[in-house]
């Protein structure tokens, strides 16, 4: 992969506008709140998420299951299941325009054309009873008003773009006739049909084998370079993030607990959760040793603990963590972390208050 140095300068420039200037970013999520009202109570799924994306850059949103990373994406796309999901606060600004207050027609104009999404499980995201060609060309017929023939020709171009061999012949194939990697390519082709400025990729390679995963990540990187598309990459895989992202936002219990440039974050995390995640990956020098783990489980979102949501699992927990929600602290160079002791964690000077967990 190389050639990332050019992207770096883009970030520097783009992060310049002040926080009150919404026009600076291509896409900006501001203080978003989402809750799911279920029979068992209200699950607070997103609790004040803010992030931004500039043209041509890749933002990785990292988190475990239930951290709210996919729900944020669904809120941006306007495909949140409602009920049970409700956006209860915040703004989603696309080119300065708030999508949450926009009419359904305005949102439709953005969806697919400006912001498109690649879903995780291509087999269930594609319709099994229609041919692949029909599905790729559907948006072109419905939204761009192309004739059936023109739309199919365009579909062949798109399939060539995502490197599906013998595209013309495979127009009439059904999704089950494709392998997992090829299906994911079809999904990518569909998302690119209207040349969106932003692509949200929700765990695009999780269901794939490593060799195929490498092919798909390469393809996404190439397309991003060629088409200058900005990408939000949602994933739980710390390896994939290190490979492609410019910036990372780490989510936990519906909050962004750390946000940093990718090299800085891997070098020295400023939040104990990020530190724990990085430590729990098996590495070569760990061979034969016990892996460092994060004890316990992510919180139940209907009963998020008081204070810092990570405090029951944190090795560095102090009294203040159990009572006060930590604000997001700016650590300079576009870095933020939501920890009372972020500076000390970053410097590595904080003493743990708990021992390493037992098995």
């Amino acid at each position, binding site marked *: *992969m190389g050639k990332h140095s050019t992207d770096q300068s883009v970030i520097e420039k783009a992060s310049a506008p002040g926080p009150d200037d919404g026009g600076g970013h291509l896409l900006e999520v501001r203080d978003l709140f989402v809750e799911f009202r279920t029979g068992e109570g209200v699950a607070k799924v997103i609790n004040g998420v803010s992030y931004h994306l500039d043209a041509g850059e890749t933002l990785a949103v990292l988190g475990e299951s239930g951290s709210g990373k996919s729900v944020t994406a669904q809120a941006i796309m306007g495909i949140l299941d409602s009920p049970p999901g409700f956006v209860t606060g915040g703004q989603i600004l696309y080119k300065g325009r708030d999508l949450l207050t926009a009419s359904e027609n305005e949102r439709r104009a953005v969806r697919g054309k400006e912001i498109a999404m690649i879903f995780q499980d291509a087999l269930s995201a594609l319709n099994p009873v229609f041919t692949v060609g029909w599905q790729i060309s559907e948006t072109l017929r419905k939204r761009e008003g192309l004739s059936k023939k023109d739309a199919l020709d365009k579909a062949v171009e798109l399939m060539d773009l995502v490197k599906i061999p013998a595209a013309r012949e495979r127009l009439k194939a059904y999704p089950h006739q494709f392998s997992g990697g090829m299906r994911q390519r079809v999904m990518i082709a569909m998302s690119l049909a209207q040349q969106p400025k932003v692509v949200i990729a929700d765990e695009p390679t999780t269901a794939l084998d490593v060799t195929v995963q490498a092919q798909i990540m*390469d393809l996404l990187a190439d397309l991003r370079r060629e088409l200058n598309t900005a990408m939000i990459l949602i994933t739980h895989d*710390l*390896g994939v*993030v290190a490979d492609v*992202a410019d910036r990372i936002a780490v989510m936990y219990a519906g909050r962004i607990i750390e946000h940093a440039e990718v090299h800085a974050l891997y070098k020295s995390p400023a939040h104990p959760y990020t530190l724990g995640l990085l430590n729990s990956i098996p590495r070569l020098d760990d061979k034969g040793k016990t*892996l460092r*783990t994060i*004890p316990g489980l992510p919180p139940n979102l209907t009963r998020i603990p008081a204070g810092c949501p990570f405090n029951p699992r944190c090795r560095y927990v102090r009294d203040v963590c159990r009572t006060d929600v930590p604000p997001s602290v700016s650590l300079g160079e576009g870095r933020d972390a939501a920890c009372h002791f972020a500076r000390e964690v970053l410097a590595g000077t904080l003493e743990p208050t708990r021992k390493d967990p037992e098995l």
Partner: protein
Amino acid sequence: MTAPALGEPLLSVSGMVKHFPITRGILFRSRIGEVKAVDGVDFVLHKGETLGIVGESGCGKSTLAKLLMRLEEATAGTAVYDGRDIVAAKGGELRRLRREVQMVMQDPYTSLNPRMTVGDIIAEPLIIHGVGGDRDARVRELLDLVGLNPEHINRYPHQFSGGQRQRVGIARALALNPEIIICDEPVSALDVSIQAQVINLLEKLQAELGLSYIFIAHDLSVVRHICDRVAVMYLGRIVEIGSEDEIYQRATHPYTQALLSAVPVPDPDAREHRNVIRLTGDVPSPANPPSGCRFRTRCWKATDLCAQEDPPLIPREADPHPSACHFAAQAEHIID
């Protein structure tokens, strides 16, 4: 790193084959072909070691696990444990063998019966095998051993998280004091922070109980952490087998090299220097594998020889561990 001394051979698998028939018709079924899921696998598992089996989906690693558990009947081959062949065992002998070889399943959500309490789930093997004594006490002991609260014996699986359910699955596998545990993707369904907890538990149990593991996984960094030896499978065959060091540092088979190079490294500084071998295309269908070497359709080294002659899994000049490639050679610097 020197290879650790291997223990006594515990399980010897040789010539293991499983072909699934492809049939056509409903009333008059005719056999029109076969899926060669496992097609001639040999390996030895030593006492106290962890043997990793890695490969892409469809390479036959889970079928191999089922054959060793006798959940599928092998088409050919033997698996000798303690002088007895698991593949040919019947009746009482099979029952006794099954006590020695247990399995931890991949998906902790579907492998536990939702209508049974975890106490009943863990006690079931004891009842089936007629183990007497205080079963309740044994179940509590097992729960404690895997790091669950023994007082939760009457809870149902849905009251546990994914990682805790996997611990229940491990307790069930341990109930009969087996010698060998086959772990089929035991941590793939779990989140990163929980994965590490379960891996640590498996290592702790191995040290305490002297277990031998066959650890099937597609996550190469997890396999590297836990395994002493690793076998790489491709289309129903083992293409390379060796110690962790031999496979990860001195691999000689092109497929192993490609597989290793494709693993994303959790270090952003590495992305500029990484040398990813990009395999083109997909794995061929196991119903109709290529002639000669099965990997040749995706291999950059393939020549006419590879199409004609099936390379045997033997020690090669490049490095003295078995590799099934005519042109076995070490690649320079795949991963650090």
